[in-house]
């Protein structure tokens, strides 16, 4: 099984900040907006280098989404920055009408997604954002897995014409994908080849899936780990082709299993190649305060949960 090495723990939000900084240097149409969370979104360097292309909106996310939509009229490529909760649920109708239905080239960049936000608790830990955003017609939904991939995704979405939701997080996690990777929207990445089970993971759960695959290998189970960074449009062929080989699948995400990646995968398989599937994710619940590790463990969002799901799904073949 192919091994991946952690190049040093880092937060995905810093990958976003680094990507935005690079865009500031290479694409004069890129502008950034923030609703009073510059430090949390790691936007400082972009602002330092491009003060005239940054707009501090204040604590007014609805206004931020509308202003971003307006900035596209005149050719700007706005990147909005706030927490995932305030990037989606708080401003859903503004995104729906002024951005998605109006097909505006806005990049909604959302940090602190999921329970790994940690101690702030459930008010800030959105676990419904992928579902909310993937339901909007025309919205691209991306949840990269580490610093390098988040940086590459941030740079790539500037070249895509249309609304994008980019989701990332707060904790420092393993950074294991290639530094100089080319990010292709909608393209699944095969991380390991396997024959007994397919594990499809997104975001922080991808590294957990790789750890799970190693554990499974030691138990004589060969797992094929696929990194789905783009939840919409979903790389259906990659998933279908993999389960044709393995015969079962586990999906893993830091999100409610109602409305998340797993349901998108289930739809693809139900209509193309019905396959036993188990879901790793939160189950119709809010989060709570705690450390990221404690929360991942309590809510069944780690490598142990993935191993358990694999054992279960293989029995259903």
């Amino acid at each position, binding site marked *: 099984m192919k091994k991946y090495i952690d190049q040093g723990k880092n937060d995905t939000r810093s990958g976003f900040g680094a990507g935005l900084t690079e865009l500031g240097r290479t694409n004069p149409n890129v502008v950034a907006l923030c609703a009073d969370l510059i430090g949390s979104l790691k936007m400082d360097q972009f602002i330092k280098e491009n003060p005239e292309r940054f707009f501090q*909106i204040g604590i007014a996310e609805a206004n*931020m989404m509308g202003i971003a939509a*307006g*900035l596209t*009229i*005149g050719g700007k490529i706005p990147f909005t920055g706030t927490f995932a909760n305030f990037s989606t649920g708080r401003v859903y109708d*503004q995104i729906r009408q002024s951005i998605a239905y109006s097909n505006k080239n806005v990049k909604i960049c959302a940090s602190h997604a999921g329970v790994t936000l940690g101690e702030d608790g459930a008010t800030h830990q959105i676990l419904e954002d992928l579902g909310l955003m993937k339901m909007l017609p025309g919205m691209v939904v991306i949840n990269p897995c580490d610093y390098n991939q988040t940086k590459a995704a941030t740079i790539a979405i500037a070249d895509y014409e249309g609304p994008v939701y980019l989701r990332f997080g707060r904790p420092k996690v393993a950074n294991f994908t290639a530094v100089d990777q080319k990010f292709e929207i909608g393209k699944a990445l095969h991380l390991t080849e396997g024959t007994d089970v397919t594990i499809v993971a997104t975001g922080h759960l991808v590294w957990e899936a790789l750890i799970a695959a190693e554990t499974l290998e030691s138990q004589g189970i060969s797992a094929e780990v696929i990194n789905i960074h783009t939840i919409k449009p979903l790389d259906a062929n990659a998933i279908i082709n993999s389960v044709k080989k393995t015969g079962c699948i586990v999906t893993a995400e830091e999100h409610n299993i109602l409305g998340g990646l797993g349901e998108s995968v289930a739809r693809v398989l139900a209509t193309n190649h019905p396959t036993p599937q188990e879901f790793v994710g939160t189950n119709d619940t809010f989060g709570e305060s705690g450390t990221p590790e404690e929360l991942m463990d309590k809510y069944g969002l780690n490598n142990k949960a993935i191993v358990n799901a694999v054992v279960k799904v293989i029995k259903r073949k």
Partner: protein
Amino acid sequence: MPRLEELQDLTTQVRRDILRMVHKVNSGHPGGSLGCAEFFVALYNEIMELNEGFDMDGKGEDLFFLSNGHISPVFYSVLARSGYFSVDELNTFRLINSRLQGHPTTHEGLPGIRIASGSLGQGLSVAIGAATAKKLNKDSNLVYSLHGDGELQEGQNWEAIMYASAKKVDNIIATIDLNGQQIDGATDTVLPMGSIRAKFEAFGWEVLDIEEGNNLEAIIAGLKKAKTMTGNGKPVCVLLHTVMGNGVDFMMHTHAWHGKAPNDEQLEKALAQNPETLGDY
């Protein structure tokens, strides 16, 4: 024919368009549309600097955003009669497969529309964004927007109003259609808002009243004055005092025709008060 008379004829024809559009599909919003007919005619014919044709970015021309999208009939009529699309297309208003959706949208590619509106309270933020893009592009043209008075009950407006003055977005003229009516009744009954002038002033805007909001000459003079107030570090608000349903006696001074179409008999009566001028579509 003197210019004013031409514009008056156009306004009468726009009223006919509005009435016939909503009557045909027995739905839509004639009241606010009629109340703003003179404003739209003045804006598109005497006030805005417009390029030939339509492109989304609108560089080097003035832009207009309709926030209270339910008055789409007046917007569509004036756009069609300004050459953005064929007046015959007004026949398709609210019908299946039409570009003239119940509320305006960019989704069907109708020339002249730059944002979807209908869910209220979002247009001012969009207009501020477009005005900001103009500043970044060193484009000296202006951004105009129109909002219902009842619409100001939506909180997003006040985020936007606060932002525009704080950030000196002084290339925008936001007009409030002060007709004092909303769906459930008079704005003073539904949710009294106090002095809208005082509120905008307290938020740091320049405010200009157009007391005769259904008088073409007064609107043109008022909007020309508003233009002179731009570029001075403050956003400009125009309070346009209109009568809902203007031009059709039985539709005036009431909220009853906010979202109701006339029947055959009512249409005939309303059209008789607005004889054909430029030709029906």
